C-alpha cells in the first residue's frame, strides 16, 4: 500500500486537520467527537442540514460544508459510519432554532447510527427529521437486500436542499424536497480497480488486468457482476440502460415522526424516467479516474440522452463522491423540475463546490 499518510490510525484526523487549516473561512473541525461545521454556525432561523458517513468519499461530505449546502458533516473512520454522538453533538452545534435535517445514505451502519442520533436530538427538544437517500439501481430487489444504497444523488440533494435552507424553507419543506430529490435520482457505478482501506493495507478486492466490476457501491464493496474490460461507450450504454430502463422502485423506509417522537414506516415509489424529462446529469469519478476520462463518459451519456429525448439541462462532472483512490466512475441522473433547478442554480460556496458567489 502506497498512500500519502502517516500512521494508519491518524489518517482521518490529519486529513481533517489539513482541511481546517486550508479553509478556515468555510469550516471548523471539532474533534472528540469529530464533526466539520460551518465557520458561521449556527445560522439563526435556518434549518440546519447535516450529513455524514464513513470517510474516504472526499470531498463528500466535509467538503460540502458551507454557504448553500451543509451546516455540518460527520466523518467516520474510512468507510465506517460515524457514531451517534458525532451527529448529536453536531446537531447541537449548528441548530439555529429551526430544526435539523439529517440526510442519510442508505447503508445499514449509517441508518442505525443516525437513528440513534435522531432519538438523542429529539430527547433534547431539537426538531429533527431524517431523509434516506437510496438511489443505486445496481441493487435490484429491496425485499431481499438492505435496500438500494445511497450514492451520487446524495451530492445533488445536499446542494439542492442546502439552497432551500438558505431560502428559509422550514423543516418539513426541506424534508419534502429531500425526499423528492431522492425520488427523482438514480445512479450506477463501476470500478476499473479496487481501492485500499489504509487500515487494511491491501486492496479490498482483486480485479484482473482485463476485468471491471459493474454496479459497485462506494466502499470498495464488490459489485453486481464482473465483466471483461470493454470500450467506454459500451460500458456507458449498459449503465445508462440500467438507469433509464429501471422501473418504478417501491420500498418501505423508516422515517422519524418528530411530532409523536417515534419511527414510522413510509411507503415510497420512485417513478421511472421518461422521454421529455429534463435532467441534471452527474458523472462522478471514484477518485482515481481523471476528469479527462469522465469527459469520454459524459460524451456518451449526452448522446444516449439525446437519442431518448431526455434533455440534460445541467451537469456536474468530477470527483465528488469517491472511494479513496479507486479508478472508475458513476452516473447519476436526476429529473429536475422548476423547484429543483432553482435551488441547483442558487449560489453555493464550499471547499468542494462553488458557484454564484
Amino acid at each position, binding site marked *: 500500500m502506497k498512500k500519502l499518510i502517516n500512521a494508519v490510525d491518524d489518517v482521518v484526523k490529519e486529513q481533517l486537520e489539513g482541511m481546517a487549516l486550508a479553509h478556515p473561512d468555510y469550516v471548523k473541525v471539532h474533534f472528540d467527537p469529530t464533526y466539520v461545521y460551518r465557520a458561521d454556525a449556527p445560522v439563526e432561523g435556518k434549518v440546519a442540514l447535516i450529513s455524514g458517513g464513513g470517510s474516504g468519499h472526499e470531498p463528500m461530505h466535509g467538503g460540502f460544508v458551507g454557504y448553500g449546502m451543509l451546516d455540518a458533516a460527520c466523518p467516520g473512520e474510512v468507510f465506517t459510519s460515524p457514531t451517534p454522538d458525532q451527529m448529536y453533538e453536531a446537531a447541537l452545534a449548528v441548530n439555529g432554532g429551526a430544526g435539523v435535517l439529517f440526510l442519510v445514505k442508505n447503508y445499514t451502519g449509517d441508518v442505525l447510527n443516525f437513528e440513534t442520533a435522531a432519538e438523542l436530538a429529539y430527547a433534547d427538544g431539537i426538531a429533527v427529521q431524517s431523509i434516506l437517500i437510496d438511489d443505486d439501481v445496481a441493487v435490484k430487489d429491496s425485499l*431481499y437486500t438492505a435496500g438500494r444504497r445511497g450514492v451520487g444523488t446524495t451530492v445533488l440533494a445536499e446542494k439542492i436542499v442546502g439552497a432551500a435552507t438558505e431560502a428559509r424553507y422550514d423543516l418539513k419543506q426541506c424534508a419534502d424536497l429531500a425526499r423528492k430529490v431522492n425520488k427523482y435520482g438514480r445512479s450506477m457505478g463501476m470500478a476499473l480497480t479496487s481501492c485500499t482501506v489504509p487500515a487494511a493495507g491491501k486492496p479490498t478486492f482483486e480485479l484482473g488486468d482485463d476485468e471491471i466490476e459493474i454496479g459497485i457501491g462506494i466502499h470498495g464493496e464488490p459489485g453486481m457482476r464482473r465483466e471483461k474490460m470493454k470500450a467506454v461507450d459500451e460500458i456507458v450504454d449498459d449503465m445508462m440502460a440500467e438507469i433509464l430502463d429501471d422501473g418504478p422502485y417501491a420500498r418501505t423506509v423508516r422515517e422519524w415522526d418528530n411530532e409523536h417522537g417515534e419511527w414510522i414506516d413510509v411507503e415510497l415509489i420512485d417513478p421511472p424516467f421518461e422521454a421529455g424529462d429534463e435532467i441534471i446529469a452527474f458523472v462522478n469519478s471514484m477518485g482515481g479516474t481523471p476528469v479527462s476520462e469522465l469527459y469520454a463518459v459524459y460524451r456518451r451519456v449526452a448522446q444516449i440522452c439525446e437519442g431518448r429525448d431526455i434533455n440534460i439541462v445541467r451537469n456536474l462532472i468530477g470527483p465528488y463522491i469517491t472511494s479513496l483512490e479507486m479508478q472508475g466512475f458513476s452516473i447519476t441522473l436526476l429529473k429536475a423540475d422548476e423547484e429543483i433547478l432553482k435551488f441547483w442554480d442558487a449560489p453555493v460556496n464550499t471547499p468542494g463546490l462553488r458557484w454564484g458567489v
Partner: protein
Amino acid sequence: MTVTKEQIVTWLEETAVVLNENKEYLTELDSPIGDADHGINMTRGFNKVMEKLPTVADKDIGNILKTTGMTLLSSVGGASGPLYGTFYMRAGMAVMAKEELSNEDLYKMLQAGVDGVVQRGRAVPEDKTMIDAWTPAMSALKAAVEAGDDTVTALEKSVAAAEQGMKDTIPMQARKGRASYLGERSIGHQDPGATSSYLIINALLETVKGV
C-alpha cells in the same frame, strides 16, 4: 454456581484480547462480502472499552455492561457499532445492580442483548448476520439452563451452537447489511458479524472455565 462481577470484567478483557488476535481474520471475512473493516471496527471499540473499564470496575455488572455498550456505540460506528452497542446496553439493563449472576440471570442478560439487536437491526434468522450465531446459541443456553446444567456445561452447549450457527452462515444468501448487495455472490462466505459473536460468547465460556 454463579458468574461474578470479576468474571464479567475478565470476559470483557478476554473479548478484547480475542478480537485483537482475530482482527485480520475478521477483516478478511469482511472483504469478499463487505468492506473489509469488521476486525478494525471491533478492536477499535473494544480497545476503547479497555480504556474505560477501570473507571467503572467498582460499579455493578449492569453498569459495567451499559458503559461497555455506550463506549462501543460512540467508538465503533458502522453497522456493528449500534448493534453491539445495543447488545451490551440492553444486557446491562437486564441485570442492573447485580454483583453476580445465576444461570437464569446470565440467560436473561444475553437474551435481552439479542432482543435489542433484533429490534435495532430487524434481522431474522437466515439473513446471514450475527443473529444466526446468537439465535441457536440462545436456544441451547435456554434449554441447558432449564435442564439444570452447570454454567460451564450450559455455556459449552451454547458455544457449540453458536459455532454451528456461524458456520451455517456460509451457504446463506445475505438479506441484511452490506453483504446483501452481493445477492448470490454472498453465498459461500462466512459472515464476519456471526464470527465476532461466536468469539464473544466463546470468550465468556473460556472466562468462566477459568482457562
